[in-house]
């Protein structure tokens, strides 16, 4: 920067290392990238921000932050290889919604099961979001299509599901009798049989799907279940 003789420049400009400090402080405190002109405006008369910036960039080479050119301006930026430090992952633990857990349970016990079957068992429509969530969680995936009119898709549980619940196979899903024996469910005086039509009964083409449901047929005390709230 050559300047015409000017009364203001009678004072010699500060030495370059001081100019570098100034640029360092100004860029640090600035809220947006500053151009050389911005810098010159704020530094004492006679300073050469271009040279100071160049010196500063050399100084910060390879450091945790670097001086980057952004358009016409300069700004401090975190070194690209350290960007991972600017992330903090917070893990939030949330309980599955009732709809999701019920849908999941139906798929686990009746797989492969169609959406219509799930809805029959639940008695309410299964929202797209619920299935999507389970699929996104990788606990549920699509199985073979059912060879019935409309060839509906079926849903099955995944390896990740088995991992999460500590099961080797869907057949390991405990039956009611087992749970009751473990003291996890309270007994109630015997009532009538469940008589609940299981989806497996109409799973015409997939015998395997009936198997998990069979667990309940072993249950000689198909008592009414106490309300969920009563359970420990």
């Amino acid at each position, binding site marked *: 920067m050559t300047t015409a003789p000017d009364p203001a420049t009678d004072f010699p400009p500060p030495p370059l290392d001081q100019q570098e400090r100034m640029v360092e402080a100004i860029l640090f405190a600035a809220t947006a990238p500053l151009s050389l002109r911005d810098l010159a405006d704020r530094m004492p008369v006679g300073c050469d921000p271009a040279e100071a910036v160049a010196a500063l960039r050399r100084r910060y080479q390879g450091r945790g932050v670097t001086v980057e050119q952004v358009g016409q301006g300069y700004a401090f930026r*975190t070194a690209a290889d350290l960007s991972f430090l600017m992330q903090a*992952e917070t*893990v*939030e633990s949330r*309980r599955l919604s009732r709809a999701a857990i019920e849908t999941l*349970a139906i798929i686990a016990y009746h797989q492969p099961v169609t959406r219509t079957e799930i809805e029959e068992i639940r*008695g309410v429509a299964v929202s797209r979001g619920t299935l999507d969530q389970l699929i996104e969680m990788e606990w549920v995936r699509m199985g073979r299509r059912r060879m019935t009119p409309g060839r509906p898709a079926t849903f099955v549980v995944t390896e990740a599901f088995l991992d999460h619940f500590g099961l080797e196979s869907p057949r390991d899903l405990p039956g009611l009798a087992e749970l009751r024996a473990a003291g996890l469910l309270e007994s109630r005086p015997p009532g009538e049989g469940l008589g609940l039509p299981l989806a497996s009964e109409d799973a015409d083409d997939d015998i395997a799907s009936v198997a998990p449901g069979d667990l309940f047929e072993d249950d000689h005390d198909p008592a009414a279940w106490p309300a969920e709230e009563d359970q420990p």
Partner: protein
Amino acid sequence: MPAKVPYLRPVDDPPAQAGLDLPAPDAASIARRRAEEALIVDVDGYEGPLDLLLTLARTQKVDLMKISVLDLAEQYLAFVEEARALRIELAADYLVMAAWLAFLKSRLLLPPDPQAEGPSAEDMAAHLAFQLERLDAMRQAAAQLMARDRLGISRFARGAPDAVIRTRRTEWQASLIDLMRAYARLKTRDEFRPFAFDRKDVFTMEQALDRLRGLIGFAGDWTDLSVFLPDGWSDDPARRRSATAATFAASLELARQGRLEIRQAETFAPISYRQRHDDDRA
């Protein structure tokens, strides 16, 4: 409580603190004096009596620890007198301080009374001097503090900080039990019926009362409770429990009415009844 900020105010605004022998102004006099005191006195005030004392002390131009408390007391009292002469009402604090300083002054002037209890006048004066010095020191400290290189004035933080990207990962919680319960809930949903107490095995107290009323007349001597249970209610444990409870409750009611007596030899021993006759009541 009135604000403790320094203030001199028109006399018609009586101090909130009691103990000052100012006449309670009636409405008429307030109106009259308000008219007189159209001038609201606004004095560049002091932050309370201690502040005023500190300012006065400075006029002595000596180290605060060497200050003459006697002189200071006189200066203060003169100030208060002047304010009163100007019909400026000082806040109660100022008057209380004036009274205290007048007391201190008299104690300082009199020869010490060896019988007097409590701190000596010298101790009181020294304490006042200490308080003035401490307040002065804190004011200087405050000034030094405010003269420091303050953040946002002399020193600056990063103007464009990098936001820490908080990624939120949701971990869904579901246990096998949750799964089981959900499934059980579905399987048993159709079984659901509104809750109704199954009365088949319940012997009500009304039934027991009827039965007991009828039978007690035959119990001239102590008769065990079990004898009163209805037929078919003593074998099944649930039915027996219900009938026993109802009969016992009914017997309490009849005992209250004075129609039978209850006896139990000891805790958990059998309970027996007999009829109570009118002649027993005497």
